[in-house]
């Protein structure tokens, strides 16, 4: 489904991502973990086209994505959420969902009036369904800025679903969540996968990654240092070193510890 090969992004002398090879299969929940600054976010930004890669390729369902702007990639089926909540505060809840829903190829070809004025029954029903799922049914005409924190999170998730992606990139969705919320989130992620969406989860909340993913890869300093099932990765020595530092005096400069 998603195939990264030799993917690199250098910012000047800093190799944020360096020769990354990664394959995510259809229907998988794939986890991508790594310490801070290991290149996880850069990888997401490369996949959805925010950054242009220095070298390497991004293939999605066999198509080369290099050079395609983010909106083309969304239409191809790659959607994402953000680490911090990002909504359009000046638009209503309904409008927040509408534009994403309306970008889809099957909706965009409905003709002028439905496309620009959202007039079809189908569009309205679909958005009503999304609102229902997100438990925001009564808030459709509220400005997004007036929603409570939890509601904003749910709206963001609903908006990602509105585009009906084939691949959903989740950028640290569990940041700042308590245990109860993390459990809810795992369930929601599984439900989304079961509806036919492949998921790439970038996270450093370990319970979530270990509990929900089937395959995973670990990044450190922009390189993949391990991959496999969560069990395999947990036992990997290189991973333990990356997270806990190496024993004795061989620790890399800048890793601290006395």
């Amino acid at each position, binding site marked *: 489904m998603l195939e990264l090969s030799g993917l690199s992004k250098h910012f000047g002398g800093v190799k944020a991502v360096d020769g990354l090879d990664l394959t995510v299969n259809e229907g998988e929940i794939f986890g991508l973990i790594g310490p801070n600054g290991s290149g996880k976010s850069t990888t997401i930004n490369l996949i959805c086209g925010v950054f242009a890669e220095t070298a390497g390729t991004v293939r999605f369902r066999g198509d080369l994505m290099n050079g395609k702007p983010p909106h083309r990639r969304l239409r191809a089926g790659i959607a994402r959420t953000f680490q911090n909540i990002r909504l359009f505060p*000046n638009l209503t809840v309904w409008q927040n969902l509408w534009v994403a829903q309306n970008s889809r190829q099957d909706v965009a070809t409905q003709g002028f009036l439905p496309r620009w004025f959202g007039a079809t029954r189908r569009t309205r029903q679909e958005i009503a369904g999304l609102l229902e799922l997100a438990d925001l049914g009564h808030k459709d005409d509220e400005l997004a800025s007036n929603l409570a924190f939890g509601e904003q999170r749910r709206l963001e998730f609903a908006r990602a679903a509105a585009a009906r992606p084939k691949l959903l990139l989740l950028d640290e969705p569990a940041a700042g969540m308590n245990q109860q919320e993390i459990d809810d989130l795992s369930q929601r992620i599984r439900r989304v996968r079961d509806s036919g969406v492949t998921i790439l989860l970038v996270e450093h909340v370990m319970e979530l990654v270990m509990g929900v993913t089937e395959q995973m890869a670990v990044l450190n300093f922009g390189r993949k240092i391990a991959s496999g099932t969560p069990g395999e990765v947990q036992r990997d020595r290189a991973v333990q070193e990356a997270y806990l530092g190496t024993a004795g005096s061989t620790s890399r400069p800048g890793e601290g510890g006395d």
Partner: protein
Amino acid sequence: MDDYVITVLSNIGMISFIALSAYLLLLTGEISFGQQAYFGLGAYAAGAVTAMLLLPIWAGILVGACLAGLVAMVVGALTLRLSGLYFSISTLAFAEMVRLILLIVHVQVEVEGEMVGPAGAEGFHGIRWMFERDLSLVQFMLLIYGLLALVLIVLLLMERSRLGSVFRMLGSDDLLAEMQGVDTVRYRILAAGVAGVIAGIGGALYAHFTTYVEPQFFNVMLGVHALAYGLIGGLGTAFGPLIGVAIDVGFLEAVRFIQGYRMIVFGGLVAVLLVFMPRGLLDEERVHWLRTLFARRSHARSQRR
């Protein structure tokens, strides 16, 4: 109505075009100090069409609007990668370029034994279509407000359409808009073009109302005012900038004791509003509140059905 009142009302109408033009760009998050250039281009082009080519005024307005729109799209494409202060400075620089070019353009033709056309710093005299047709001030004012109503209807329809949402999305988060499948490049150029057309129509009308335009009128103060109208009146609806114009040209001009201090009062008003209501009197929040107030009754009716 005496001529003075009609003139003030006509001025309010004509300035409203450039206010709406700047407002549209403010929606997309861009502060342009250069909309006066499109107003000026519209004025010169329309004047040339009616006074030099002797074509009717609708042709002049059409040419003025199209030229302003096209140039605005080119400038929009050139400034795509700029944002914030850099965008503002480049629009200002472009507008000054247009003004300085108009200062040296000397193209005149002989019409009925008289030389007519842009004459550099001396301006463009003799755009007399209105007098040749024996149009009264009131009739011309109706033309201004007719076109203004048309532009306003288009903008209000746009607000309700996906385009309105897209423009506001560009104004708050470019990257996020891309992630919703919005081709931000295309819509930014479109917004620039539409804003140019609106300013161009205003300029075309202005040239025919005053019968005389000079480059000096299209200086940066016009553009700054255009921006201020949207920021005073509010960015929540296209009525916002019109309220801004009415407050400045109408109220401040009409109140006697402010006379002579108008710019000081105006500047103070802008400063106070920017602090307490950064998106103007009718910002999105208040417009939304008003809309739900009006919509509640019809909504209740549709619920019963």
